[in-house]
């Protein structure tokens, strides 16, 4: 597989959210606005890329039975790094995302890529895979966040397009399920047309 398609696969063909349905908790929980979704996506991208690199380096040295615990420790360390960094430099976003930052550690995408890709590939492909998957995740979260923000409060990234209050339910909990359900529905429909 070429490096380019290795990078782009995360956006559509193997998009972690729309196609693989991984990482649902942060996807639904943090996408009340486009900026929150993007912030969460980028934080996850950082963890994904860094842990992929480290794991591809050390995978050969780890005994098979402690593979998963070792990976989890590496991932948890990077999660704490981004948690501390955001608390220091982006306090507003940090308090908005709250609990979901430490919870990156149990995001199935991160451990999934470590296990399925990084542990079997070299450093460079693993980095690219991590970045591609992470940005695909970011893309999905930003899209979902923008959709919910637009429908719910008539704005995207805080810029108001439509006056008035919008369809309130979309910024509330049920709206997360509705918006994601319809986005996947549209994706399915488009994918079928193509093939």
């Amino acid at each position, binding site marked *: 597989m070429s490096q380019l398609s290795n990078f782009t696969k995360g956006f559509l063909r193997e998009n972690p959210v729309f196609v693989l349905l991984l990482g649902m908790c942060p996807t639904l929980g943090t996408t009340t606005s486009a900026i929150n979704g993007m912030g969460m996506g980028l934080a996850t991208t950082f963890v994904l890329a860094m842990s992929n690199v480290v794991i591809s380096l050390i995978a050969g040295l780890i005994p098979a039975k402690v593979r998963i*615990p070792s990976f989890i420790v590496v991932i*948890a360390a990077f999660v704490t790094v981004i948690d501390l960094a955001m608390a220091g430099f982006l306090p507003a976003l940090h308090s908005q995302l709250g609990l979901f930052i*430490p*919870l990156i550690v149990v995001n199935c995408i991160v451990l999934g890529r470590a296990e399925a890709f990084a542990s079997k590939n070299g450093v460079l492909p693993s980095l690219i895979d991590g970045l591609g998957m992470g940005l695909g995740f970011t893309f999905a979260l930003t899209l979902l966040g923008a959709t919910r923000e637009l429908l719910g409060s008539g704005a995207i990234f805080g810029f108001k397009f439509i006056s008035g209050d919008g369809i309130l*339910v979309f910024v509330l909990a049920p709206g997360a399920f509705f918006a994601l359900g319809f986005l996947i529905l549209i994706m399915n429909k488009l994918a079928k047309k193509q093939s």
Partner: protein
Amino acid sequence: MEYIIIVISAIFVNNIVLSQFLGVCPFLGVSNKVQTSMGMAGAVTFVMTIATIVTYMLQNFILVPLGIGYMQTVAFILVIAALVQMVEIILKKVSPSLYQALGIFLPLITTNCAVLGVALLAVQKDLPLMQSVVFAIANAIGFGFALVTFAGIREALDLVDIPKPMRGAPIALLTAGILALAFMGFAGIV
């Protein structure tokens, strides 16, 4: 009184799956059959309660006294991973029948964010030990309640002719949305 508020708020008002979005992966993943979802709910209740007790001890007797609160995420997830393995081994020896029922769900629980989420929430809210335990059990019941209800609806959906592009994830998510809408009716009762 305080305990009752914790319980009602965790099960209905701030349902862990439908309003806090923790544990959505197993919620969508193992909710095809009422039978399996009950097994999953049982396993989660078991692990969540023990994990909250252990992480409470860890936080208050090790991390805080040593001033290394920043190791929280690493320490908690390691403890939960180890705990899940231990529960699996013990269950296999002590109660093979229970292991039969819960066994296959246990490995899935390590990456169930509801378990880590509840442990972190209990510590964040600074609850004393007894309240933490009640909080964990109540949240586990809330998880099980949402999961079993959802599985019941999905079993019925299996018999319905759903438009092709809606099959699978979309219809599941829309159903979950309507369920979440119903749970919003509980907002404000505590």
